[in-house]
């Protein structure tokens, strides 16, 4: 084989490798380096060894951020359940059903900042939610939703669920449309009602989609930022009630100019996400082998 033929595949790979190198591998290497320095962005970094990692161990806010990130994973099963339910509902041959499918998908194509701002106005002290509740007599005084520490994270999770249902339901809808109608006929003949039909036919048939959605939505939940940023007005919530890993990383890097420490947090986030991905992939592989 001539040299030219041997080098040709690498020439085709080169553009992608260069892009990956510049935008993925170099930044990762830079973050690892900066995590070993005291770096405030504006002045050159000063090597301090593992001091940033030692600081991580004593950081209560980081522990809280980790906890919040793991709590945020609860959106995944809720999203899966609601998305499947929605997909089942819209998987019908009804007049105008395409309009409903399109409308449910609108949040997925709306900007996360626009959605976040809209929810912030809704839950503002003088917002729509309080207005309705006060006018119906459910409450006598407006609730300060976003200034109540125990409500910030649940509201952010609700926003994520609301914004994601349409997107994930499309994935499940595609899966449902591949389920042979004969299976539903057989279930009906066996005496299943509608709920049992979906439990014993639809959901097992959607297993690959469920695993896929589970993986991507849980990774997205671990990396949540936009919702917290907008809902809390860049503060992370009173008493850090909404601070998650990525938000805390941003806060350290860009608000407090502790880019070195933020890089150490990024390493922790990388390891957590990597661990999670490995677990998810193992589950996926196990699921596929069981199916075979």
């Amino acid at each position, binding site marked *: 084989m001539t040299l030219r033929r041997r080098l040709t595949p690498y020439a085709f790979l080169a553009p992608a490798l260069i892009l990956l190198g510049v935008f993925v591998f170099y930044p990762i290497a830079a973050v690892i380096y900066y995590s070993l320095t005291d770096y405030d962005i504006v002045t050159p970094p000063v090597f301090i060894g593992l001091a940033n990692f030692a600081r991580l161990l004593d950081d209560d806010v980081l522990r809280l951020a980790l906890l919040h990130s793991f709590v945020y994973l609860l959106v995944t099963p809720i999203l899966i359940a609601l998305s499947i339910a929605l997909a089942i509902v819209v998987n019908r041959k009804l007049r105008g059903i395409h309009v409903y499918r*399109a409308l449910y998908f609108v949040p997925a194509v709306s900007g996360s900042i626009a959605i976040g701002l809209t929810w912030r106005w809704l839950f503002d002290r003088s917002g729509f939610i309080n207005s309705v509740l006060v006018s119906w007599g459910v409450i006598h005084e407006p609730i300060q939703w976003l200034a109540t520490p125990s409500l910030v994270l649940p509201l952010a999770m609700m926003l994520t669920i609301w914004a994601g249902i349409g997107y994930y339901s499309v994935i499940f809808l595609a899966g449902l449309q591949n389920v042979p109608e004969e299976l539903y006929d057989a279930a009906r003949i066996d005496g299943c009602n509608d709920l049992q039909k979906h439990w014993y036919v639809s959901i097992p048939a959607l297993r690959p989609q469920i695993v896929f959605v589970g993986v991507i939505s849980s990774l997205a939940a671990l990396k949540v930022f936009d919702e917290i940023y907008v809902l809390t007005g*860049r*503060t992370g919530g009173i008493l850090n009630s909404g601070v998650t890993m990525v938000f805390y990383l941003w806060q350290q890097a860009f608000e407090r100019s502790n880019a070195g420490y933020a890089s150490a947090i990024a390493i922790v986030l990388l390891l957590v996400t990597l661990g999670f991905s490995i677990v998810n992939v193992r589950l996926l592989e196990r699921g596929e082998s069981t199916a075979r």
Partner: protein
Amino acid sequence: MDTKKSKGHLGLLLGVLFVISACSAQSPSTAPSSAPSAAPSTEASASASTAAESAAPTALAADPAEAVIKDIEPGASISVWTFWLSPTFDKWIGDTISRFKETYPGVEVKWEDHQATFQDDLKNAFAAGNAPDVINLSVGEGWVSDYATRNLLLPLDSVSQDVKSSYFEGLWKSQNVAGKNYQFPFYQGVSVELINKRFFEAAGLDPAAFPKSVEELPALCKTLKEKASVVCDLRLTVNDLLAQMVYEGNVKVLSDDGTAFTFDSPEGVAWLQMYADMVKDGTVDNTALTTKDDRTGLLIFSAGQAPFYQTGPNLIREVKANNAQLYGDLAVVPAPVGKSGVIGKGLMGMSVNAKTKYPNASMALAQFFTNARTLTELSKQSAVYPSSAKAFDDPYFSSTSPLIEDSARGSAEAAISKYADIVPTIPNKGDVNAVVLSAVEKALFGNVPVQQALTDAVTEANKLLD
């Protein structure tokens, strides 16, 4: 047929998306605002209502007497960044730069205005080594000392005594680090309280009897809640809580030798207890109290949902633009003073990059933007004020105006001449502030006793001094 239906539905979806995009694009300016939280807001934009003053002012002629900085480097080419002055003041800036070039021939000037991302842009520019030569920095938010402590700014004490003494002394000494000054005082603001007269009438209160001191505010807020069913729109300066403690509570935050924090004193406890009591009584909007965005409170007030709001009179035009009806119900009174007795500190400064290739030309430009003549012209276009006594000799400042935006004009000199920066330079300010903020939030919302919260914060903050 199905294909045609699908295309029709796709068209409908696209139409919906366009509408939503348009609505999103028109959302109010709640994009992260770097506009400093100092009571006089920093967005010095022209008041549309001051039509007479802002009607295309003619450019000033160059005056050789304005060339007060000597030994300008020949062929100097310098850059200047302003903070949120464009597009409203494009002409003023352009005229000023043209006049500067006539006064100091041979110097080229490149101007950029940065807004919401100013701090990020500046930090990136410093990191990349291409930061501007002259920089408009907020004194009120402590940006000058932030950059000065990292040796990024040029000390300006080498200028002549005539130049130094042309500014109010308190302003010249603002944000000094280790006794050195790093900014030419730029435009200044005057704190006022905008009052929504409807709430005061409902509560049977006279706006003219608005509290003169900060410690009287809790009682006022209680009355407003009981009688007018409205909560107060107060704000903690969450980016610089120690400064607020000093001005409002006359709290000594750092020991004289700088080795220990002392904000858990009885004065510090009294200051924080005041806010804790208001939160417990439900007389304040908790979101506005703890927001980072100083525009949040203004928006709440402009929507007619707050009884009063502390800001600079230059932002009254925002109230008018958002709610013309409220504009008609506005009263303006002086802002209350804290226990320190000091009304406030400087608002904006012009600093010089420590690594500029043209230090004299850069100092000349920074000084030129801040001299009496230049800032008097700016004052005629917006309710902000100059930094030097000589500027106030202009008849403009003793003239009266029927507009509520100009209500502080007559008292501006007296207020600004007393401005002083009484806050010590705080090492690791960002991290220390985070510790203090955590303590404040625990005391306000976490049921932790105020004394305990502050003492714990002092212990933690002292570790940052090591």
